[in-house]
């Protein structure tokens, strides 16, 4: 089992975390939440930090085993069903993520390019990135980390459009709907759970503070993003937009001249695409390597599995209609975001009942 050092793992973690927040923005901004969307991120943060402590205790107790191996060892027959089910959910989550990204690309930028071609191009790049392995992906992510400060600059520019009355503190207690939205607390933290459990055991064991700091920075970035969206579009206005972050960038002015009208959107598009590619590739590696480990396959066989999974992802992203996605996405996101923490908690509980593995 290959593990990433913190220098390679933290960039992947950061980029994937931010991507989830930017991709599933529409689902975080729920009707019942109003302008308080940014608050649910902080609730999710507290739960996830607790989860990281659990993962740390597992990493210390079982230093040579991955989460897949632990599921098999500690849960027994439940693990035999639970792990494949986890793979299926993450596979479907990757499909939804890829579809969100490629739909956005097709709608906002490449509107004359057939959707099938966008999806094919997307998965060719993702497949290639995943084929090079997690170490290469980690190195690429280290370079692409510069996209985060670029995004921050765009975000700060968008603050000029905020009407601060929309995010006045009175809104916090006036609309408490966000407290009921348990599924949204965890949605954008799903990559943190998955990637930390699979790639990050070494980093969690040795560089726990750095991992926590990464999550804190990511949470602040996403919190500020949702704060800006709520402040700009207002409590009722936020429901109008299919991709609220892209819409926020669309209304942000770099300069008042018409020549710069879409400059921010264009820069954001490249940032977002880079982050999405890394995230999808990291999920693809998780699926291929995890499945390979679960089935006890050799490294070469894992590569064939990776190609098969990429083909499967492409097919499942390209074939279903828009209606199919509208019908299933919300439920799938709920199930996938809650299943991962529950499965990890289950492994942890089982570990408490067993003696240390020598």
């Amino acid at each position, binding site marked *: 089992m290959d593990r990433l050092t913190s220098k390679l793992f933290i960039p992947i973690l950061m980029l994937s975390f931010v991507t989830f927040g930017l991709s599933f923005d529409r689902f975080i901004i729920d009707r019942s939440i109003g302008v308080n969307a940014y608050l649910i991120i902080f609730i999710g943060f507290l739960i996830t930090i607790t989860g990281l402590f659990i993962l740390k205790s597992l990493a210390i107790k079982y230093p040579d085993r991955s989460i897949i191996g632990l599921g098999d060892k500690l849960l027994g027959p439940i693990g035999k069903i639970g792990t494949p089910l986890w793979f299926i959910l993450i596979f479907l989550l990757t499909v939804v993520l890829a579809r969100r990204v490629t739909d956005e690309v097709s709608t*906002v930028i490449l509107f*004359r390019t057939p959707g099938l071609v966008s999806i094919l*191009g997307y998965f060719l790049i993702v497949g290639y990135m995943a084929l090079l392995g997690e170490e290469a992906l980690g190195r690429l992510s280290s370079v692409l980390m510069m996209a985060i400060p670029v995004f921050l600059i765009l975000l700060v520019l968008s603050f000029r459009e905020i009407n601060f009355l*929309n995010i006045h503190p009175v809104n916090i207690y006036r609309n408490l709907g966000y407290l009921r939205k348990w599924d949204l607390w965890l949605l954008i933290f799903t990559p943190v759970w998955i990637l930390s459990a699979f790639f990050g055991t070494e980093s969690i064991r040795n560089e726990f503070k750095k991992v926590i700091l990464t999550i804190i920075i990511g949470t602040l970035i996403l919190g500020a993003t949702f704060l800006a969206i709520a402040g700009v579009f207002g409590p009722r*206005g936020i429901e109008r937009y299919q991709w609220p972050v892209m819409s926020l960038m669309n*209304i942000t002015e770099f300069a008042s001249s018409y020549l710069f*009208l879409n400059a921010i959107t264009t820069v954001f598009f490249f940032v977002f695409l880079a982050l999405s590619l890394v995230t999808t590739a990291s999920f693809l590696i998780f699926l291929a390597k995890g499945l390979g480990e679960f089935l006890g396959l050799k490294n070469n066989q894992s590569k064939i599995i990776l190609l098969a999974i990429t083909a499967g992802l492409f097919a499942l992203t390209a074939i279903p209609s828009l209606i199919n996605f509208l019908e299933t996405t919300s439920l799938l996101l709920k199930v996938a975001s809650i299943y991962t923490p529950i499965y990890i908690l289950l492994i942890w509980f089982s570990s408490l009942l067993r003696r240390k593995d020598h």
Partner: protein
Amino acid sequence: MRLLKFGRLGLILLLLVLCLSGCWDIVPIEERALVIVIGVDKVENRIRLSAQVPTIKNLIQTASNFTDRQKPMVKPFVVESSSMLDAIQQLEDRIYKSMIIGEVKIIIVSPQVPRKDLVNMLTIFLRQPMVSFQTLVFSSEAKPEEIISSESPFDIQPGLIISKQQRSALKMAHSFPIELWDFIARVDNRTLDPYLPVIRLDQENKSYLLQGINVFNNDKIVGTLSSDESYLFGILTDKVEEGYKEIIVKGQEVGFGKVKYKSKIRIIRRQNQDKIRVDVNAQGTLLEIPKGFPNRVKTYQLFKKEMEKQLQQQVLSFVKKLQFLNTDPIGFRKQMEVAGIKNWDEVYPGIAVDAKVHFNYRNFSPAF
């Protein structure tokens, strides 16, 4: 490794082929009808859509043998239909070029467009993937097609002139831009009312006059602000960046330049009565001093006092006009909502208003 090398090469080739698909159906710029200004009107229950299409060849700025400055730079088109989408299609059917409606920079709406249609029409533009959310929206006094059909005396495409003129920070005194997304967001949120700057044709100078504002109650036009009232709107929304201001002292005009304003709106809640409190801080340079006023400190003090007094009266009467029209493009209702006034919508027209203006001289004039 060999498989990986072949895979890498194949991937690069495949991506190049995918990029080539963009060249397959490319439409050169001369073959595109880039609609930059579009007018929306309603006449006898039918939508009247007008579009200003630049003639690209005559639009090119650089000196060229192919450029004929005498020929018109734009070609107007006007169509009528029962629905907005059909009107857009009607336009497509009349232009031999490929029409790119996504390049629209200016939308001019006639006051004749009924309330129920206005937001629907504008959101159609917002839903067009290519149309910028930052597209400027105007209200015309007469038919938008008159503005669309007019020729500009400048060597720049008229739509771009309007955009430049409206967005210029130094000109923001009697007209203020509103972008498409902002108009729609204001209607969506139902607290801060939208407004539309008024555009007119200046026949004498063959130019565009951007003066005055049409104000709304949610999506319904309820009145028009004159250029002076628009200036007060700019003061209360901190939109006036470098304005002039004239007051009358002892029957004579006293003028200030480079006047900047900073306003603060508060809701004061008392047991017996809630109140809107407007505080305006202004800074400016004295430019126009009438004859007979000596160069003394007392004169400066007198002008300062008069400026504060007169501006306060103007602000008060302006806010009262807004209350009378039951429109709030400033944000009083949002402040009332935040302050905890539950039925802010009903209370707003009758709530008491208090204003306080504080004026300071920004710097000396170079000459007295």
